[in-house]
């Protein structure tokens, strides 16, 4: 029962945050709601005994990405970027609650698939992989993707600099 309770709470937090992301006018608020959603998902990860993933989730998503987004918004100093005015007459104008409906429909559909597949109940209730096992795999089997990921990050960095640096040079 505890699991149900926990899951329900976390789910509600996640969904409400996501819904608020749609709704709120200020982007910064949306970013904060995003962090909240991420954190709630991290909670679910914890429930799944994926502590490592949960930790990374908090670090990378709730921490790094959210911070980055907010920084970017602040840095640009443009009013427009910070808030989003509701448009008149657009197809999507009054669609805020719709987001839940669409999400629900999609989820229902996927669930239908899962249920149709008659996914077997859990075969094992073993502990999830330890950080050590993850680390070991990461540096043996997954060495190549790991290295590529490093280059990916390098390029992301380079790219971000290239795309934004010009201004600095000139100023």
């Amino acid at each position: 029962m505890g699991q149900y309770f926990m899951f329900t709470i976390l789910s509600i937090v996640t969904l409400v945050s996501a819904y608020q992301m749609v709704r709120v006018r200020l982007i910064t608020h949306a970013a904060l709601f995003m962090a909240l959603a991420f954190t709630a998902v991290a909670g679910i990860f914890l429930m799944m005994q994926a502590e490592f993933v949960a930790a990374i989730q908090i670090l990378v998503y709730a921490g790094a990405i959210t911070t980055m987004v907010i920084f970017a918004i602040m840095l640009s100093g443009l009013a427009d970027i910070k808030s989003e005015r509701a448009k008149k007459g657009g197809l999507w104008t009054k669609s805020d609650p719709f987001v839940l409906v669409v999400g629900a429909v999609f989820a229902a559909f996927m669930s239908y698939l899962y249920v149709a597949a008659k996914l077997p109940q859990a075969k094992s209730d073993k502990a999830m992989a330890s950080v050590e096992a993850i680390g070991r795999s990461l540096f043996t089997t997954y060495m190549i993707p790991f290295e590529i990921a490093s280059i990916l990050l390098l390029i992301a960095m380079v790219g971000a600099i290239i795309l934004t640096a010009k201004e600095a040079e000139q100023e």
Partner: protein
Amino acid sequence: MTLPIYLPLGLGALLFGLGLWGALTRTNAVRILMFIEIMLNGVNLNLITFSRYYWQQNAESAARAPIITLFIMTVAAAEASVGLAIILNVVRNRGSVDVDKINLMKG
């Protein structure tokens, strides 16, 4: 776990769907970016759920889903940084992040 697998999977799908809808309806590029991250979270949730319920035969297989998730997060971060850089560039040149106004090319 006694929780039926359908619940976390459903939540994953719900997150994905929400993110998708948000990404498709919000016109602020930054917000779209954020919704994409939500979608990725849905995926991650799926992965971890499946792993948790089924794929724990040994350390190797148990580590698989977390590692995939790890990579996805890495990529997401990289994507976010590049994406934000692009958005900032657009803002600089056009003074707007409204994707509906970014419409020089069509047809």
